[in-house]
């Protein structure tokens, strides 16, 4: 680690807040990020300085997020049903991203139906950009378990998108190719 709390805060508050916000919204992210850093501050002197702090912070945040899993699933389902994301304040409507936006409700639906532990691993991978080893450190899991959960989650997402979301994507792509 080798950094002060202040340095770590400066480096990690934005990615950590962003990760929580993407899962639960900005307001909840304010609270949970504050709680995460409060816990980290209280335990700072007890950390092994030779170990990376980032997985530890995301592990604390993940523990706090788990308490809100019903809310998270509810919001994902609402997004899938209405196409309006309760988490995102505004949608990017640029044409070059139209195809990917069309797939977003399908993505939300697929995320909502994932098992909690699989969603957690997948989102730490995709949104927090943690490596498998770092996810293992965050969640106190062996890397093999992380890999298997990630694989299952991605299989589930792929199957769900194949059944729902990709239809829209293909339709849009076809439409864009027409003169």
């Amino acid at each position, binding site marked *: 680690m080798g950094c002060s709390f202040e340095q770590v*805060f400066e480096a990690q*508050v*934005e990615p950590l*807040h962003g990760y929580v*916000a*993407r899962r639960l919204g*900005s*307001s909840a*992210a*304010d*609270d949970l*990020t*504050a709680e995460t*850093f*409060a816990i*980290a*501050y*209280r*335990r700072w002197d*007890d950390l*092994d300085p030779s*170990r990376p702090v980032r*997985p*530890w912070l995301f*592990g604390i945040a993940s*523990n706090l997020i*788990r*308490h809100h899993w019903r809310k998270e699933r509810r919001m994902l389902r609402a997004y899938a049903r209405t196409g309006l994301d309760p*988490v*995102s*304040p505004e949608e990017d409507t640029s044409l070059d991203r139209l195809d*990917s936006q069309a*797939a977003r409700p399908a*993505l*939300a639906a697929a995320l909502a139906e994932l*098992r909690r*532990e699989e969603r957690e691993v*997948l989102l730490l991978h*995709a*949104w927090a950009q943690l490596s498998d*080893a770092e996810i293992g*450190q*965050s*969640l*106190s899991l*062996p*890397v*093999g*378990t992380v*890999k*298997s*959960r990630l*694989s*299952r*989650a*991605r*299989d589930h*997402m*792929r199957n769900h*998108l194949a059944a729902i979301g990709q239809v829209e994507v293909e339709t849009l792509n076809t439409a864009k190719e027409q003169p």
Partner: protein
Amino acid sequence: MTNDDLQLLRDLRAEIPAPDEETRRRIYAYATSGQANRWQGSSQRLRRAAPFRLRFAVPAVAAICAAAVAAVVLTGALGGSSIPSTHPANNVWSPLSNGTESVSGPPTLANPLPAFAEQTTLADASAELGIPLVLPNTTLVQPADAGSVWVASLHDKAGNSVVTTVAVTFPSRGVIVEYTRPAPSDGSAAHFQAMAQGMASPGGAQIAQVISLSGGVPAFAVQQNSDETGHNFGEIIFNVGGSEVRVMGHTDRAKLESLARSILSQSGGSR
């Protein structure tokens, strides 16, 4: 999921704005204010909107315990052998000096449960679990060898325990026995088989398998020092009497099995 699909996921909600400077300042002020030590009885919660207030509406301790227990339960329920280690290199997070709390990281003899578990006594742990704690009684490990005992419970709004995990350590024997009630899975061979699939060593070898204990009770066995860290505990996981029991230690599978059989025979129950 293809890489394209993964990119779609990475783009999802990527436009959410970063916290503004005022919010960052408030978060930092809260984190370093020592409020965390007093949040149990407070009703403070951070709000982005003015006026700025610190108001935690959610009973934080309940949330934390829930998260801790959820971690334990989910780990056991879904193929997540915790595979803890006492190897210093795997002590990602050092135990707290006061010895009364554990922090996030791989379970160890010093901190067998995830963060926020509490140290307790065997009697209190048994009361919390709602059943007598059956300890292994073999030539390798005896009840008198029991050391620190930890408990993490999830309570509902009425204060009733929803799920409880107890960890009994046997420091001189390098063994931990965990009990989770109610069991997070049916403990069937099919469930354990599903857990074993996909758990492979870095070389691709299977590191876990389904075995049968006394009376045909299925169990999940993880080979010690077989995961990517190279120094994970061996584990035997099984259900008995509606609880899940996990026997962990740096010892060979036959000895761990003998401990599991001892617990099972004393319990005299099925899954």
